[in-house]
């Protein structure tokens, strides 16, 4: 049973917000870059926006944009994924707490720092009483949110859902990341909101056939084949595989191995050179996958090889986090 992508909002390091198709890429020389933000006044009143850090403003803007695009009035569920929530507010509260010895602390920063504030503020903004949840499992938080949405669709508990992946990169966190990162990847941030429906129409980007999130699989190659098989497909049926390659040599090895072993003759693409790497960067990959199918093209600046993507009927999005958490999302054209 497919679930259909009816609208996407994407704020990223690229000019992706409310653009049709693929914007011309922006290439960066710096290692710390922030999103290209829209004018948030178009989405959030000043009295609401005054408390919001960037991650929350972006979440609301992309949520509203994806809902408007879908033409669906109200989602039945709002499910978010975020690695760190509003790290900006967390830092403000934490620093003040340490500097002032636990005195004169401001409640706003604490309230905004809780991870579920994103999903909940979207709901308050939309007045949505539906199912509301937040996943905070590091580099597959977005995929976990999507997994729950798919479960609810499969159980006929919902007909529509807003699913998102939201993270921000503050200067202080960038500094900490550099201390623990192995090397090679561009640090990024972003906000992707996706409107899903059990029904398709002329607005549909693509169908999501299935998603699987795996923890430390014994053999990822076997797991991928089993996943495809469970969904009536084989590796040979894929037209293109979109990989979460991020420039980190150790982490990228598995992508290259899988691409060569299972999808050697197929088109390969990547996206983290555009989005940067962050906990919910798979959201950007999702946006790319959906747009490739919708517009029937793979832009040259994401292609990793020159193999044709054929009819762009079947696409596999493959991501992993620290070689422990893996996600597979199977898309198809409709």
């Amino acid at each position, binding site marked *: 049973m497919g679930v259909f992508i009816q609208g996407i909002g994407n704020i990223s390091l690229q000019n992706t917000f409310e653009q049709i198709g693929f914007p011309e890429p922006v290439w960066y020389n710096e290692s710390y870059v922030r999103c290209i933000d829209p004018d948030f006044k178009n989405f959030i009143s000043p009295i609401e926006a005054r408390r919001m850090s960037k991650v929350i403003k972006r979440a609301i803007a992309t949520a509203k944009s994806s809902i408007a695009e879908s033409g669906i009035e109200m989602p039945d569920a*709002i499910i978010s994924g975020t*690695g*760190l*929530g509003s790290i900006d507010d967390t830092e403000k*509260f*934490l*620093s003040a*707490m*340490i500097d002032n*010895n*636990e*005195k004169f*602390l401001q*409640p706003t920063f*604490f*309230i905004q*720092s*809780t*991870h*579920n*504030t994103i*999903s*909940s*503020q979207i*709901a*308050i903004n*939309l*007045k*949505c*009483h*539906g*199912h*509301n*949840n*937040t*996943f*905070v*499992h*590091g*580099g*597959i938080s977005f995929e*976990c949110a999507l*997994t*729950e949405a798919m*479960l*609810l669709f*499969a*159980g006929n508990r919902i007909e529509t859902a807003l699913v998102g992946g939201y993270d921000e990169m503050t200067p*202080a966190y960038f*500094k*900490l990341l550099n*201390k*623990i990162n192995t090397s090679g990847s561009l640090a990024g941030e972003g906000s992707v909101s996706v409107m899903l429906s059990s029904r398709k129409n002329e607005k549909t980007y693509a169908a999501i056939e299935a998603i699987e*999130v*795996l*923890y*430390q699989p014994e053999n990822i190659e076997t797991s991928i084949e089993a996943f495809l098989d469970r969904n009536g497909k084989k590796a040979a049926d894929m037209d293109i595989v979109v990989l979460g390659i991020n420039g980190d040599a150790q982490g990228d090895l598995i992508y290259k191995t899988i691409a060569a072993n299972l999808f050697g003759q197929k088109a390969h693409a990547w996206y983290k050179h555009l989005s940067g790497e962050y*906990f919910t960067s798979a959201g950007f990959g999702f946006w790319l996958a959906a747009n490739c199918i919708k517009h029937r093209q793979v832009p040259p600046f994401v292609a990793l090889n020159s193999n044709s993507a054929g009819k762009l009927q079947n696409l596999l999005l493959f991501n992993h986090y620290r070689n*422990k*958490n893996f996600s597979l999302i199977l898309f198809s054209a409709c």
Partner: protein
Amino acid sequence: MAGQVLVTGLGIVSGIGISVQDTLASLLAGKSGVGIIKYLQTNHKDIPCSEIQLSDEQMCRMLSIPDSVPINRTSLMGILAAKNALADANITPNRALRIGFISSTTVGGMEKSEQFYKDFLENDTRNEYIKIHDCGACTEIIADYFGGFSFVSTISTACSSSANAIALGSNLIKQGILDCVVAGGTECLTKFHLNGFKTLMILDRAHCRPFDATRAGLNLGEGAAYLVLESDENVQARNAKALCKVAGYGNACDCYHQTASSPDGKGATLAMQYALDMSGLKPSDIDYINAHGTGTTNNDESEGVAIMNVFGNSIPPVSSTKAYTGHTTSAAGSVEAVISILAMQEGFLPANLNFKNQMAKLSFTPVRELRRNLKITHVLSNSFGFGGNNTAIIFSKIQ
């Protein structure tokens, strides 16, 4: 698609005990874990809280974790509770069994990060703790202690987090994705959220009194609890003993305010109604409600109104157990799920401690004294989080 979702194991650590047996004994004795802060290094030790009566070092020794391994209190508590749950269910996670681990937390590794934040920024002495700050990393420390899980995830919806973990685990089993899920949550006390709640001015400087007309706020607590959930096929196949079933659950958003619940209790009402709908039960079938009952002026009124909305003239016995364990925030859903199941199994109603004065707006009075030797078949457990994340779960005896 699998049929029922059965509960085959319970594990809990909190201020009222580090085992199911100790927890039960405390509930039956009316013994609270709320008191002066002993372990957390804070300038606000005078704020009554409920702490697990173990230091990090003691927990490491109990779990045979060497001092050299970077770990935090949230994860240690989680390992203890999960270990007990798995032992209770007589299950060893392994890849042949399709078993998942769904934990919840909001603080994650903050208990160490708040101690080492200056070091994080200014030197390289504590970098290993940067890696284990985020919520997912803490969950993986717990999962990796056991090994064998094929699906691992983390939820954070404030005070309803671990209830949502139980709901997700149940969905994964019902949809045939997994055969078994260890679901729940863990939250240790931190200066971060102690100070955070203090700024919201909802902490009682005395022992909290849920549903009392003079209530003045909540007491924070730390805790970890997990349920082992299984498909009935798996239970039958390994001839296991099931404690009860997950009869129904509901998740609804209040969407009223970031830190306050609506006066008409809309979100809470919907969550309880959805749980009843899924279970196929009538309100009059519920034998006991373990309320969210934090002791704040706002929650208890909102939740009370919601209970009246759903149960009308047949309101079952209601009590909050937060005056025993404190408000264990992200772990509250699973801590109170364990307490609800114990109440059902052992046939007792935990007293709602410190209640003296009836709230004028409510048509019910909470359970004032422990009641024993009762037949309890269906219990409803409420967990309502900041931001309006409301979840209700019904557990039923298997008949």
